[in-house]
Structure formats: C-alpha cells, structure tokens
C-alpha cells in the first residue's frame, strides 16, 4: 500500500517540475503512468523509491503494518525502506559478468549481514528462493548463464526476478519496455501483470496502447500534475489531450537546440 500526498519538486533555480501529485495504490493495482516527456514521470518514480527527495509532500508506504514516509527518511532507515521497494529499470542494470542466479540474489544484499556477505556470501536457501523468483518469470533454465550472453528481453526478466526476490511491498518499473522490441515488450508486461496480485505495481510507459491493454489503471501526468486517474479504457480524446503538444514541442526543441549541436 502506497499513498502519495501532494508532492511537489522544484529545481534549484525555483522552477516547479512536480506541482502537487497525489494518488493511492494498493494490492491488485497495475498502474501505468503515461505522459509526454518532461511531464515528471521519471522524477515521480525517483521520488517513490527515495532516489530524489520531493520539495514538499508525503509518500507513505506501509511496510509490515507500519506506515513510513520515504520522503522524510534518510541514511539507514531509507536503506531499509528501499530493500522493500523493488525497482526495474529501463537499462536492466545487471552485473554482466555474474550468472543470472547471482544477479537475482544481489537484490537481497541490503538485507544480509555485511560480515556474511563479505566472507560467506549467499546461502543455499537464498539460492533456492532466487531460483523460484526466476521460475515466476519463466527463465529458470537460464540460471547459470552469464548475463552478458542474454537478450534484452531476457535481461529485463532477470531484473524483474531480482525485484521479486527482494520480497518487496511495492514494485516500481521505470520504462521497463523502452529498450525492447514489441514481442519482448509484451512478454514483460505479461510477467508484470500477475505480480500485481501480491503488491501494487507501478510502471512508467511510453506506449499508451500497451499500457492500456495490460494495466488495470492509468495515471496520466502533464506539466507536473495528474490529469487523469482511472481505469485503463482511455479515450482517444484523452490521448490527444496528453500528447497533443508533444509534437509541437519536439519541433520547437529541435529549433532551439540545433545551433548548439
């Protein structure tokens, strides 16, 4: 269970990028966050797992029946919260020279004793659990391969298994399918969907049609505010409303940045 209460974020120069975003997510939610570039999607995600601190507002996450505010926590407490937040990145961010299974186990580094990780490493029980996480995304057969030898779609599934293995209370996915071809993108969405039965899954997506097909809830951002929060049957009008300016903006940006390049 996660509750975002009216978060704002301003740059050092005082420009407000997030202008008060609020939403709640609970078990069963598979939320797709949509919006044109610059709407604040990625920044919102960074706030959700504590990589960035919002200027004002609260982000309440319930862990073991206790409510924590990730926007306020620092240091050790923040690290402990993060262990309970699974994150999947656009660039997979795996350790290429370790095996698939080891990459999954790395997800729990924060939860094991420093001394043990240095001298003993993981134990067999953890390996077993990691293997089960791989089974959930159906790539257990690749367990002993080096990550560098996998395809992009396989790597992203390993990343999801790593997030599951953390036994998180919430799963965040920052543009998880942006680097993948359509077939692999669909496979990833299919793996993410059932996970939402155990924990809220929140993803940022660039492709509205895929998001509306697999997610059961859509949150649309524009200029740092929520312009839509509802079921995934999004209308053509809404899409035009969200993305309509983007083309024009891209053209303007091209004109402005051309002399610099």
């Amino acid at each position, binding site marked *: 269970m996660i509750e975002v209460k009216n978060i704002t974020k301003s740059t050092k120069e005082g420009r407000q990028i997030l202008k008060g975003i609020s939403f709640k997510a609970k078990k069963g939610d598979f939320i797709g966050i949509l919006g044109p570039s610059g709407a604040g999607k990625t920044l919102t995600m960074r706030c959700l797992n504590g990589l960035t601190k919002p200027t004002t507002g609260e982000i309440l996450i319930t862990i073991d029946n206790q409510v924590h505010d990730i926007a306020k926590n620092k240091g050790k407490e923040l690290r402990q919260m993060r262990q309970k937040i699974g994150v999947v990145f656009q660039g997979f961010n795996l350790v290429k020279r370790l*095996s698939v*299974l080891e990459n999954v186990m790395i997800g729990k580094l924060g939860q094991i004793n420093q001394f043990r990780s240095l001298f*003993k*490493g993981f*134990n*067999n029980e953890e390996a077993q659990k990691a*293997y089960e996480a791989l089974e959930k995304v159906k790539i257990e057969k690749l*367990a002993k391969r080096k990550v560098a030898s996998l395809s992009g779609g396989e790597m992203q599934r390993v990343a999801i298994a790593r997030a599951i293995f953390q036994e998180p209370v919430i799963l965040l996915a920052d543009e998880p399918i942006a680097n993948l071809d359509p077939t692999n993108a669909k496979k990833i969405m299919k793996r993410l969907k059932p996970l939402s039965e155990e924990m809220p899954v929140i993803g940022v997506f660039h492709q509205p049609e895929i998001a509306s097909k697999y997610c059961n809830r859509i949150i649309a951002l524009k200029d740092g505010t929520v312009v839509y929060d509802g079921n995934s049957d999004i209308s053509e009008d809404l899409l035009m409303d969200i993305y309509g300016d983007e083309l024009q903006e891209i053209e303007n940006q091209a004109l402005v940045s051309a002399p610099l390049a």
Partner: protein
Amino acid sequence: MSLVIDHPYLIPSERLKKRAFIFSVLAIIVIGLSIILDLNPLLFFTDGHHLINLLGEMVPPNVDILWEKKSIFSSILETLAMAFLGTCFGGGIALGIAFLAATNTSPHPVFRFIFRGLMSIERVIPKLVIILVFVIAVGLGPFAGMLTLTIGTIGMFGKLFADAIEEVDPEPVEATYATGASKLQVIKYCIIPQVLPSFTANLFYAFDVNLRSAIGLGIFGGGGIGFEIHMAMKMLRYKDALALILFTIILISIFEKFSDYLRAQILNEQTLK
C-alpha cells in the same frame, strides 16, 4: 531442504568451498614464499623507523644543488641527449628493419624470419646485460647508454612498426600494384603515408620510455642524472638525492604530458583528413 538447483555452479555452499580452496592455496603460496625470502611483516614495525629516519634525513631537499653544482646541469643534458639519440637512431633503424620484417613489404621471407627473430631475442635480453657489454666496448658514459637505448628501441619499436605495416589496408596497395608500380613506389606512395602518423606517434612514446630507462642505465655506467642520484645516495648526501629525485619526477611528468599531447595531435590530424 531439497534443492531444485543441481548444478554446483549455482549452489552457494559449493561455490564457497571452491573459493575457500583457491584462497587458501594462494595464501599458502604467498606465506610460504614470504617465509623462504625472510619477508617478515614485523620488519615493517621493527625496521620501519629506518625508513622514517631516511625520510627525515632527506627532508628538506637541497634544491640549491640543481644550480649550484655545475655537473648536475650537464648530467641532465646527458640524460636527455641519451634518450633523444636513442630514440632517433633506434627509431630510424627500426623503421628500415620494419619494412624488411613485415610480410607485405619484405623482399624475401628469409629477411622477415631473421629480423623478427633478432628483435624478439633482443626484447628478452635485459638492458642490464646490454649496458654492461657496451660499457666494456666503448667505456663508461652516455655513449654506452645511448647505444643501449638504440638497441632497445630497435627491438621494441621495430616490431610495433612492422606490425603496423602489416595492418595497412591492402586494397589501395593492390590498386597501386595494378597500375604497374614497382614495390618501392608502392611503399613510398601507398604504405608510408598510411603508417607515418602511427610511426611518429610511437616515436614520441619511445622517447618517453627511453627517458625513464636512461635514468636507470645511468646507475650502471651510462652517466647522467641517474648516476648523480646513485652517487648522492652512496655518499649519504640524502638531501641532494631527494632534490634530484623530485627533479627527475617533474622532468618525466612534463615530457609525458608533452608527448601525450603531441601524440594526440598527430593522431587527431590523421583522422580529420
């Protein structure tokens, strides 16, 4: 608990055993060798004060020696001259040999075999041996040092040059042959322009390497700044020695930066064209 995973590569306890085995073997070797060589870590504590004493005696460096003692100036010149001549002569000869030793320019495979063989033998012979022989042949001094560096440059850069020639793009070469050009013409108009930038860049690198070796060779009879440092240490004039060492570090650093810069310039120019 029964494991679904069966491969030892995947089972952490198996991997831990393997890792522990490798580490203990390495530890036994290292500790064993240390015992054989009398490397006692306690020496750091019992003899550590010797090092600190030495450092104490070295500070502050007697910087004045750099301009007060006349021989220092000529020693610096000697070291630089040794490195410069070694690079020029060695580089020139290496260039000639490279053409004889590269498959695509060699007049006969026999040349290639002989020169490649000689160069690889040279690379294995320690510089110490070469300088000792030259000191006997031409006497102590920078001349012997310069000859050693020349030989060393031939061995190392002759191979690099020959490899560069062999990596030349064969298509323009064949095209030029097709127009009826002779081998020498092909070398002059086709191969040299392609390899020249990398040759020049490597020569600057060679100067870098030779400057460092020139300092080491000084100690064994090559003269120059290395010899001065050696003498200063032998005569327990540690403050002088530190001044010379600091000067050496600065000298080498400056030439390294300078040669890095020129090398980058040359190689950039080539890619722009």
